[in-house]
């Protein structure tokens, strides 16, 4: 392989590494803020990393030892908050990066948490429910010394869900000899979960879109929307946007894309999806391959599936004026630059999809007081927080004359840095 193509290959790998993108975002923001080297170092490194070995009795009588991590990036603004993922690809670098990401996300929406992340290297698809339960309980017990409602509050992530959170809550509660619902968020409703949590990320996307529209002077009725994805974020986001009067022209799932130039009947599409498990077979639309979905003619594009969807390869062909990042890292750094140069407004992931962590915060608050809000109250408080965060990011973008992504990092880092200055270096 020639040196030139190796370099090109490396550049491509870098473009597709979302953590490199994040590191770049961090450095750019730190430059704008004029942070000194010491502070940069403090904010870049995790406060604490824990690696644990987890022996688990498997159903066939054998014992397997899994490897798990919990990284606490920063707890200056409050207890650490962040998901736990069960996946064969979990590695410490990724967990570290995701923990830092949580610090910035919590800071952007100004909820009183630092960032954390955990993971266990395992393949849940090959494990029984009993094996998963034993793994979860052992992992909880192993990291318990650094967990707590005022220390570190986990949440669901890749391949973990309500059931996993219920096991964590039960294990912790049994160990401390008292009911401790606030130890973890994303629990089922009947053991301290919050109303409105399942829709929270989609709702946050909707609120971000509304604010962005106001900013660029458009109205929902005149806005054609393409949503990549149709799950918890994309599907619910599309439904809520549809209710607000937006015209959703396209949705997609893993297998294909649906398109209707006149606007999809989103509730009907989702009902079909719910019944048959895929979009295929829904009648009132055209069916297209996924390849060109993002390039369809629209005003608002909501990539709500996975990372690296809008890249240096297709950024030129994107027709939307506005992108609201429902997924984490759907636009690469290079693509973001290309789009920004063309005048496309991007509402970045750490703001746009922060509805989920915000309602996690509400769940923790409700658990601490033991009183649970109605769905209307959850939704209106979510709106209050998201709107305020959006306006602060927009204001920062104007002040520093930067795109919203950089502005979000500037705002987030500045908040953590100023707390650091106030609290000082301990000991």
């Amino acid at each position, binding site marked *: 392989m020639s040196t030139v193509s190796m370099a090109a290959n490396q550049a491509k790998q870098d473009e597709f590494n979302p953590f490199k993108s994040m590191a770049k975002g961090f450095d750019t923001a730190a430059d704008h803020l004029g942070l000194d080297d010491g502070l940069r170092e403090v904010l870049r490194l995790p406060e604490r990393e824990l690696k644990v070995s987890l022996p688990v009795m498997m159903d066939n009588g054998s014992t397997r030892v899994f490897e798990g991590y919990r990284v606490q990036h920063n707890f200056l603004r409050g207890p650490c908050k962040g998901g736990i993922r069960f996946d064969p690809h979990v590695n410490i670098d990724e967990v570290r990066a995701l923990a830092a990401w949580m610090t910035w996300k919590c800071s952007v929406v100004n909820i009183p948490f630092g960032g954390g992340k955990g993971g266990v290297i395992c393949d849940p698809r090959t494990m029984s429910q009993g094996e998963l339960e034993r793994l979860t309980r052992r992992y909880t017990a192993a990291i318990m010394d650094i967990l707590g409602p005022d220390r570190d509050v986990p949440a669901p992530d890749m391949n973990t869900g309500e059931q996993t959170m*219920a096991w964590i809550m039960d294990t912790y509660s049994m160990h401390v000899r008292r*009911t401790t*619902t606030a130890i973890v968020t994303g629990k089922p409703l*009947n*053991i*301290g979960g919050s109303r409105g949590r399942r829709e929270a990320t989609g709702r946050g996307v909707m609120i971000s879109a509304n604010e962005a529209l106001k900013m660029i002077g458009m109205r929902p009725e005149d806005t054609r929307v393409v949503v990549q994805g149709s799950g918890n974020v994309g599907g619910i986001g599309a439904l809520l946007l549809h209710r607000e009067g937006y015209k959703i022209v396209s949705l997609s799932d893993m297998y294909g894309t649906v398109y209707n130039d006149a606007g999809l009947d989103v509730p009907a599409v989702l009902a079909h999806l719910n019944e048959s498990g895929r979009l295929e077979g829904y009648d009132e639309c055209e069916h297209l391959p996924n390849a060109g979905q993002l390039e369809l003619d629209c005003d608002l594009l909501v990539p709500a599936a996975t990372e690296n969807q809008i890249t240096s390869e297709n950024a030129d062909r994107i027709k939307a004026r506005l992108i609201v990042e429902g997924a984490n890292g759907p636009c690469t750094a290079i693509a973001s630059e290309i789009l920004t140069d063309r005048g496309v407004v991007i509402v970045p992931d750490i703001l746009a999809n922060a509805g989920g962590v915000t309602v996690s915060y509400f769940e923790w608050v409700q658990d601490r007081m033991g009183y*649970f809000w109605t769905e209307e109250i959850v939704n209106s408080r979510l709106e209050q927080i998201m709107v305020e965060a959006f306006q602060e990011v927009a204001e920062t973008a104007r002040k520093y004359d930067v795109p919203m992504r950089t502005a979000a990092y500037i705002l987030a880092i500045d908040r953590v840095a100023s707390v650091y200055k106030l609290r000082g270096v301990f000991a």
Partner: protein
Amino acid sequence: MSIQDSTTSLQPGELPATPPLDDETPFATMMASFDVAARRLGLGPTEYLILRKSDREIAVSVPVSLDDGSFDVFDGYRIQHNAGLGPFLGPLRMSADLRIDELRALAAWMTWKCAVLNVPFGGAAGGIRMDRASHSPDELERTVRRYTASLLADVGPERDVFCPDLQADEQVMSWIMDTISRHARHTENPAVTGKPIELAGTVGSEIAVARGLRAVLRLTAAHLGLPRKGLSIIIQGAGTVGGNLARLMHAEGHKIVGLSDVNVALFHPDGLDVPALLEHNQKHLTLKGAEGTYEELDPKDFITSPCDVLVPCAVANAVHSNNAERITTKLILEGAHGPVSVRADRILDDRGIPVVPDILANGGGVVLSYFEWVQNRTGLYWIADVVEKRQSRFLREAWDAVRKVQDEHDVSLRMAANMLAVQRVAEADHARGVYA
């Protein structure tokens, strides 16, 4: 030094034995209908097994110095039934013929009740085997404090919360709170509910059960198509529950045609002058001799007198197999604990008279206990309006949930409430899984 026993007389030098965990019937009786509910829900024996037993049963000996210089040792218990939905919550009883099986039944009952009302607690019940009346306030205080101290490892705001019962009043609750706080070295208001208002209690406690009954009566009347005003109502009992309910319903434009206490039963088909009767009751601690137009009925005839709504708020088994056939009402609302006997329930069901079960109807009290705990945890106290509004929301949501089960399974309100309770607790237990 003499050693006395509170229940049996002993020979000098003979020590009272730790009583055996008796195997009596209240628990089995109470659970029987929940067993049916579990079967109807299709719960397998393994899923239901855990609900048939207490999570934890604690027995403690409570030595107490008596005023005459001697001391006595009382038996104390705390039964914790199921922690699936949250910390335990339950009353404290003091009586000389306390039975552990009765506490088991009461603890499980609290689990079901909290589940129906959707308050995040499991059920508990405690007791001290002593005759409260034969002891001085000082002796009582020392007993309660020592009992509390013996249970310290297992009680507290996130472990097990005390609420009052007939013999354990505000004063007793305050001693428990003080003892737990002294040991914890900080104020532990939420360890106990039913505290006096000046000691971190909540507004609306006193009237909580009556308000809950009113809320449920409104919902039931609307459901059955009964008028919103002008219903003729018989209320058995004129105390905190019955008396307050009479006042509330009278003020709402209904006719209280019958009101009774232990001494007397008053009846007038056009409605009684409730404010005057209650004023008399407050002064003289009985309705007997109150001025006004009414007829004094034999208590036996009283409960079978014609009315639209009958609300027994006094004693268990007020409606039994001997009078259930003669009950002439369109609706019964259980204000007391278990005022309709099991056999009477079947008769009324056959006759098509709906009974709103106690577990739902008198749940206003447990909702207020929960609100007090929440306010103590946050340190922020709600104004009366907020308490009232939130209380009626909880009762409305419980009513709606029970009605939904009733429609789905075509059962009585009582069975629907029992099924809802079992379902909610079983779901929580299932989500949490079996630890270790």
